[in-house]
């Protein structure tokens, strides 16, 4: 897969909405701050729940699924590392459809995350694989096309899914 190109935040938001998601739960991430999270925060058609820690968000998203409300948890890779136990317990073992968008702090935009020389970037994908969480790369705008189908699958199967954002959305 090619790493170069551009990733439009508006395309991610459109895909999120096309997935039936109207609630965004977040902890800020510098990678996605300008191009994704601020536009989400300003979008009146989205409910934005700010949490203090990522594991709070995992629980909130799981609970909302019982109310037939779809949600996306937008976090940073450091927050993903922090929330691993909650993902293990709530999302994987209890089979809840928790949808994650993980920004990679410090990612080199033209290097695929799995090939990154940076440990904190390189291990995200293998960690998701170890947890058994389906993952998708968001490296270029065209990648956003996978979002609605993957979210639908997550809710249909009641399983988590992760979208790994490899460059700052513009």
């Amino acid at each position, binding site marked *: 897969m090619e790493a170069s190109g551009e990733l439009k935040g508006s395309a991610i938001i459109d895909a999120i909405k096309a997935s039936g998601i109207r609630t965004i739960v977040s902890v800020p991430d510098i990678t996605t701050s300008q191009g994704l999270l601020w536009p989400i925060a300003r979008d009146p058609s989205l409910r934005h*729940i700010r949490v203090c820690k990522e594991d709070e968000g995992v629980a909130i998203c799981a609970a909302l699924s019982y109310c037939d*409300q779809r949600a996306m948890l937008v976090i940073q890779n450091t927050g993903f590392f922090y929330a691993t136990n909650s993902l293990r317990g709530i999302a994987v073992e209890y089979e809840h459809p928790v949808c994650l968008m993980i920004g990679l702090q410090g990612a080199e935009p033209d290097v695929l995350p799995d090939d990154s020389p940076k440990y904190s970037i390189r291990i995200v994908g293998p960690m998701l694989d170890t947890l058994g969480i389906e993952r998708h790369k968001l490296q270029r705008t065209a990648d956003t096309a996978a979002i609605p189908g993957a979210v639908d699958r997550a809710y249909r199967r009641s399983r988590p899914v992760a979208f790994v954002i490899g460059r700052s959305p513009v």
Partner: protein
Amino acid sequence: MMKRDACLKALARRRTDEIVVSVYRAAFEWKVFAPSPLNYVAVGAMGLASSHGLGLAIGRPDKRVWVLDGDGSLLMNLSTLVTVANQAPKNLIHFVGENGVYEVNGSHPIPGYGKFNFAGMAREAGYRNAYEFSELQQFERDIDGILKQDGPTFVTLKIEPGEEYPMDWPYVHGAPQRDLFRAALKPTNPRS
């Protein structure tokens, strides 16, 4: 100090169609006193009962949500007090059984027991109401009014173990109760 089972029995007598999120000993005992499909036990990770409760309260504003938390659990997720207060769900009541120990993990003491005040922290975080009870008679006298108030409401229950009840781990970890809960909580507004 109150017996935990006496407190839970007092709440069980008042439970109608509330969603009840519970952890550890409270979950095991609540199952005995108030079995219901609307019991939510899929907490799944340390300290997150109130976060699940917040999600349910936001997702179902038409229903009252009671959270039966533990002191050790809440200490693992103290930031929840700020998150809950910021969202300010009117339909959420957050009970914390304060016994001073991690009871299911060997009864080791929680850090700082007796040196801080949960209800005070909740109040300062921005909960609309915060109470603390250590006498059952007083709790029985006040709880009906508290349950009717707009939340978010926080209630510390100073407790000690009562009678022994079975620790039904399959009930907490298994899929059947989650399936029952999902079926019982049929949505009124799909995907809003």
